[in-house]
């Protein structure tokens, strides 16, 4: 478990997918395709986010009779805020690692 809650790479992927349409409702299958996570990985993450009040849910009954309803998810205001800050932190960390590893220069090379 990462030391900061809600900061595992998979959770960050879920955040990114949800933020692509921050105010909209998302389907589970769509999130799975966007994040590349299988249902077995995705739904526990969604469950945790709901429990923390970062995600709200609703059921959409199927058009066809007898079929099960679909579950939809939307970021709450808190959820959107946390998602953005976690992603920003992760980006900053990645940049710092690249600089430390010499992959990024902080100063541009002067033209020779």
């Amino acid at each position, binding site marked *: 478990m990462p030391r900061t809650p809600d900061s595992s790479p998979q959770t960050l992927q879920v955040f990114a997918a949800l933020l692509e349409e921050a105010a909209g409702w998302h*389907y*589970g*299958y*769509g999130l*799975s395709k966007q994040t590349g996570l*299988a*249902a*077995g*990985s995705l*739904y*526990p993450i*969604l*469950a945790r986010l709901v429990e923390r009040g970062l995600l709200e849910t609703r059921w959409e009954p*199927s*058009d*066809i009779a007898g*079929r*099960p*309803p*679909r*579950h939809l998810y939307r970021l709450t205001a808190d959820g959107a805020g946390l998602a953005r800050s976690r992603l920003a932190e992760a980006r900053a960390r990645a940049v710092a690692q690249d600089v430390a590893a010499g992959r990024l220069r902080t100063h541009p090379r002067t033209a020779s």
Partner: protein
Amino acid sequence: MTADSRVRRLSRALLTRAAGAGSTWAAAATGELDAAPSDWAALRWTLSGLRVAFWERRRREAARAGVPRPGVQRARKVVLIGVTLIVALITVNWRVATVVDIPSTSMLPTLRVDDRVLVDKVGFHMTGLHRGDLVVVAMPVPQRYWIVKRVVGLPGDRMECRADAVYRNGAPIPGTGPGALGCDPVTVPAGSMYLLGDDATVSMDSRQFGPVAQSTVVGRLVGRVWPVTR
């Protein structure tokens, strides 16, 4: 909406069954089956959905059984392990092994005063004592106290002190070098051993009090416990 093939029908039934009543997340996975573009994708989704079903079941059972939060469970485990270790240490210290403080300089340079050593109280009975072993011996006179010495002679060995070293069966024992030597030559009797301190100049050992019965051995040194590095 995609056509309802047999594969999808079966998968839906399987997932619904696995989810059970009152499921949220497995039911959500079931509801997404129709979104799969192909039967093969539906099958893969079902397999992963089964994992969700089992995960959810475990959660529900844990909640129902009143299992406390993971933090409390971990704390309980730590306490249990700690208590077990303490009990084991006490048991071990009594019978199997113990830690002994080195009281004197007679075992320099090998052991210093206030070093702590681990003593095996049991194993040496099975392996027997060997020349070179460091042992803890209970000396009966003048009062009962423990000393730490090295076994340099076993039954049948002829021990004598010469100018340059302590000799065993006519050969010098390396490291027993010159210095306050002087002892009566003796053959180690059966069931006894000849003890020598590593610092021969200060040590009181078999040179002074003669061979000692092996039954007085409390244990054999296994290693130094403190300090850890030297």
